[in-house]
């Protein structure tokens, strides 16, 4: 049996207890809601506040915010056992705020935990967008002394995303880009000897993913979704290495960790600004076509009216993820669910006979 990423209740505080410790799940009475944001002093120390966190009904000064932010990420890493001594961590760095902040935090963690870091940046070939963030990624890696590997779609797949979308239509942009990016990240991480692949998914992304999977009626996919993506029983080959997750099939799938899993996106941006991480806040020109964009707007609208909504979705997901994984495991035994194997066409990790990339490219 693989180790569950979610510790048993009662042994350790759960992820949402951590969130609660930062006030994330504090009950919001109508009175509190009215007072949200009314304070300009730090809830903790009384000094001038730098940011209001409506989801926590708090305003914090820069010092207390940074402390809270860093300790929340550190506890997420510990809670879900994302890192261990000796890990070689490939960090997916796009040059955006999430990945750059994650890089800084992992670099900080590496000072006390002996792990090796290197960064991978995928250049999809999006004119006027990626070249700018690529410069940011290079600058941040140089600042921290972390080696950077840049991989382009053009070199890896023979086409830039711009070119591919000219042929196939922009509406498929996120389908292509997501599949190709995951494929390239996994392949390069493995080639470079990584034992973990760190991805900058924040709690907003998590809430969006949960909602998207529900709205698309994809429970299997939702069951596989986790802070550490290799640890879900549905992803483990039956008869694999004892008690281990998918790395029994070493060489194909690099376990993905998401240190910002419980951290709201706006907090990440605030941390980047406070720490002087030089990021250009830019939107991908193809983002408007994405279903995720609509879900993001919907959730942010709800969050504004009912602070804490997004974290409550994450909380609900985590509280049910064990059950979903049990269900997936049951279906695995009865042969009714997919397992991760190797693509018959390209040899990369996949849960199907032919991986999504080969399917997409064949169609093109």
């Amino acid at each position: 049996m693989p180790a569950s990423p979610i510790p048993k209740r009662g042994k350790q505080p759960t992820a949402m207890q951590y969130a609660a410790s930062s006030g994330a799940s504090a009950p919001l009475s109508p009175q509190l809601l009215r007072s949200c944001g009314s304070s300009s002093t730090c809830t903790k120390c009384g000094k001038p506040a730098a940011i209001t966190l409506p989801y926590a009904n708090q305003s914090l000064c820069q010092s207390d915010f940074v402390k809270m932010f860093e300790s929340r990420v550190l506890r997420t890493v510990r809670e879900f056992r994302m890192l261990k001594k000796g890990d070689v961590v490939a960090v997916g760095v796009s040059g955006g705020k999430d990945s750059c902040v994650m890089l800084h935090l992992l670099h900080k963690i590496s000072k006390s935990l002996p792990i090796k870091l290197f960064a991978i940046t995928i250049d999809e070939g999006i004119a006027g967008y990626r070249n700018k963030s690529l410069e940011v990624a290079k600058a941040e890696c140089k600042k921290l002394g972390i080696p950077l590997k840049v991989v382009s779609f053009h070199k890896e797949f023979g086409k830039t995303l711009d070119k591919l979308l000219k042929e196939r239509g922009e509406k498929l942009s996120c389908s292509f880009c997501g599949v190709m990016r995951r494929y390239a990240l996994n392949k390069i991480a493995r080639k470079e000897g990584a034992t973990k692949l760190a991805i900058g998914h924040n709690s907003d992304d998590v809430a969006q993913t949960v909602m998207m999977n529900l709205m698309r009626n994809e429970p299997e996919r939702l069951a596989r979704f986790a802070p550490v993506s290799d640890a879900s029983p549905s992803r483990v080959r039956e008869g694999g290495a004892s008690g281990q997750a998918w790395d029994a099939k070493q060489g194909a799938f690099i376990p993905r960790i998401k240190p910002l899993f419980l951290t709201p996106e706006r907090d990440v941006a605030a941390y980047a600004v406070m720490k002087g991480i030089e990021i250009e806040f830019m939107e991908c020109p193809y983002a408007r076509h994405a279903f995720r964009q609509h879900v993001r707007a919907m959730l942010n609208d709800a969050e504004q009216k009912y602070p804490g909504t997004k974290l409550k979705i994450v909380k609900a997901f985590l509280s049910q993820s064990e059950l979903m994984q049990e269900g997936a495991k049951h279906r695995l035994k009865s042969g009714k669910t997919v397992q991760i194997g190797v693509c018959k066409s390209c040899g990369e990790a996949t849960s199907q006979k032919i991986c999504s990339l080969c399917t997409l490219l064949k169609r093109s």
Partner: protein
Amino acid sequence: MGHTLLFYLMICAYPACSRMEVTVDGKKTKATSAATVAELISSLSLNGEEVLVKVNGKLAPNGMKIAASDEIKVMRVIFGG
């Protein structure tokens, strides 16, 4: 006569008093005068969940009082990509 002049001056001055200059995503714009950061975000029809506000170079909480003389920058920080 004096009252009429005063009234005229008030009418003329009103639009200037009720507007404040802010920078949104690097572009200067005029916003309806607001007493706090939260009011400003609302008057710009922005979602507070998607923005950070700097007042005189420092990040500001929603409850911070602002004046037309302040240098105010609003940054949209939630994007797809």
